[in-house]
């Protein structure tokens, strides 16, 4: 790519992909597992009923296939949770996610309109919180990290609120 008439040297720019990403909280994987169990156990139990009612052995294939699928999905979900990473730099926050379809989102602090920390009932059980960053503009999804420990999320919120104040004061 040709950059024309630049005022700075491109090689001097910090590359956002050199960042060391901070992984999600340890309990996040446990929360993901709990979520998966909550979804899959009722489904698996329900899938045995056709066999119990009709006594046709072939119908046992349904729970077997479902079990296989559930393990596969769970494995991927856990891997996905482990891949997620967030990094705070001096002027921006970066978030990387995705196992196959990788995605890196970066928001500069002086573009953040407000920050929101929330935690659902399951998250509270595991001491986790979700932090959301809102910017102005047309996109419906802004930066959202949902596997941070509650303290870390609060810390981050305070840090960024500070930064936003700083940039508006200038």
């Amino acid at each position, binding site marked *: *790519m040709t950059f024309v008439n630049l005022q700075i040297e491109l090689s001097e720019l910090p590359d956002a992909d050199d960042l060391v990403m901070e992984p999600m909280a340890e309990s996040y994987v446990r929360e993901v597992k709990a979520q998966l169990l909550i979804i899959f156990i009722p489904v698996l139990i329900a899938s045995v009923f056709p066999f119990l009612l009709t006594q046709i052995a072939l119908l046992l294939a349904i729970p077997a296939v479902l079990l296989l699928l559930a393990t596969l999905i769970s494995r991927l979900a856990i891997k996905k949770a482990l891949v997620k990473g967030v990094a705070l730099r001096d002027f921006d926050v970066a978030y990387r996610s995705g196992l196959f379809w990788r995605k890196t989102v970066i928001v500069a602090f*002086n*573009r953040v309109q407000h920050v929101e920390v929330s935690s659902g009932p399951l998250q509270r059980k595991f001491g986790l919180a979700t932090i959301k960053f809102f910017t102005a503009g047309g996109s419906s999804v*802004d930066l959202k990290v949902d596997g941070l420990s509650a303290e870390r999320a609060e810390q981050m919120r305070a840090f960024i609120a500070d930064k936003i104040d700083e940039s508006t004061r200038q």
Partner: protein
Amino acid sequence: MSLSSAKLIWQRTSPLAVVFFLLNSIRQLITNGLPALAVGVAAFASAGSTAKSWMLTGLLVLVLLSTVGAILNWIRFRFCVNDDKVLVRSGVLKREELTVEFGRIQNISIREPIYMRPFGLALLSIDTAGSGKKEIVLGGIRKHIALQLRKTILSTTKAAPVVPLEETENSDDKSLLLSRDVKDIVIYGLTVNFVLWLLIAVGAFFGAFDVAENFFTWLGNYIQIEDVEAAVEKAGGIIGAALVMILVLLVIFLLLPLISVAGALVRHYGYRLHVEGETYRKNSGLLTRHDESMKRHKIQAMVLKQNFVARLFKRTNMQLRIASAGSGRENGQLPTGPKTTFLVPVLDDVELTKLVPEFLPGCDFSHVQFSRINRRRFSLVIIGWAVLPPLILVSGVLGLVINWMFLLLLPVGLALAWIIVSQIWSKSGYGVVGNYGFIRHGFLGVEVTVFPLYKVQRVDIRQTPGQCRKKLAHLAIHLASHSLSISYVREQDARQFRDLALYLVESSNRAWY
């Protein structure tokens, strides 16, 4: 009445605003309740005479109710202009109070609807930025007050040099940046709805025959098909019918651009663009005069559109995009309404090179070198995943079931897809000149978006497994006005583009709004 005496005093709009409120509620009724309305009309048409009279009574009651509603709305509507903000109290059932600081205001426009013109009244709408606040419309205030209000608001906007605005409509020629005559507006009308009538033309020939047939059957029933049939018989049977069909299609094709041109004339007749310091003002309109203002630093992006028709005329339509009220989160959609764009229509090349740096200072449009996206991957993925499977399925099934000739669809379809994909590829591009980013897309026409890199809100880089392997990426740039994206960019380019934008965002403390 001077503005200083209006301070802190709650004011009402003119009683004529009742008409404005009434029109508003009618418009809402029509846009929200169109299906219900259609059902109502159908029911009315098929109902007996007693039912008809009941329905008419109902309609009368509805009209009366909305009139009363409009009057109540007007009584409840009060506004107040402070030193640095506008306050509005409104609402009949649900009371509402809105406060908008001058610094938050993106765009002010003054309209003079035809029913207000004789009374010297105008309509002032104020568009705000950011967190989903609504737009304020002061319907029915004296025109000179509207002009004065705008002057006050614009001159107190943050960090802007105070430039006196002229009170009068007829500004002197020094400040005139651009004017469009009738010929230009006609060309604009031809260019603007091009896609729509192309689609209709294509639709009439492929696939949409059912719709057309139903329509003509309905039309035929309506205008006594027997007469037409007799006429057709006289004219010469089936050939005559075909001729009539072609004639009708021709009329439609001629009519659509005509409607589009008429619409353009109504909206943009007498287009004049003025600049006063940092403030741009445009005047246009045949029946309702529109008077819109915008500050230069509010521009988030510039979109240069040149579709197939515009290319024939060697003209480009320029849209200046502004951050919009209520965009994004609440609606979950991109703001594309006319309120968020400031139109500068049908520019020739000379005007374009003059105006681009006017709106985007220091933007050297002529030096941009567009980098291409990866052709092989782009074509292979689009054709391999999106075109080939359905094509094989359709031609295979048709070929086996009906006639082997249908198998020829496969190479023909592939060739067509290849041409289209190549065309799209050749129009895709990206580049950076100085502090401005450029992204280009297109198929038959081209659309180039130019944006100051320091106004970027958020940058995403995405990669599919295939892109990962080939060191390619999808770059998405989110601006306060809208979002842009480009795929199959070299990974390194995407990163450099992003890092440069972030650097400029973070190192400059210039506000984006």
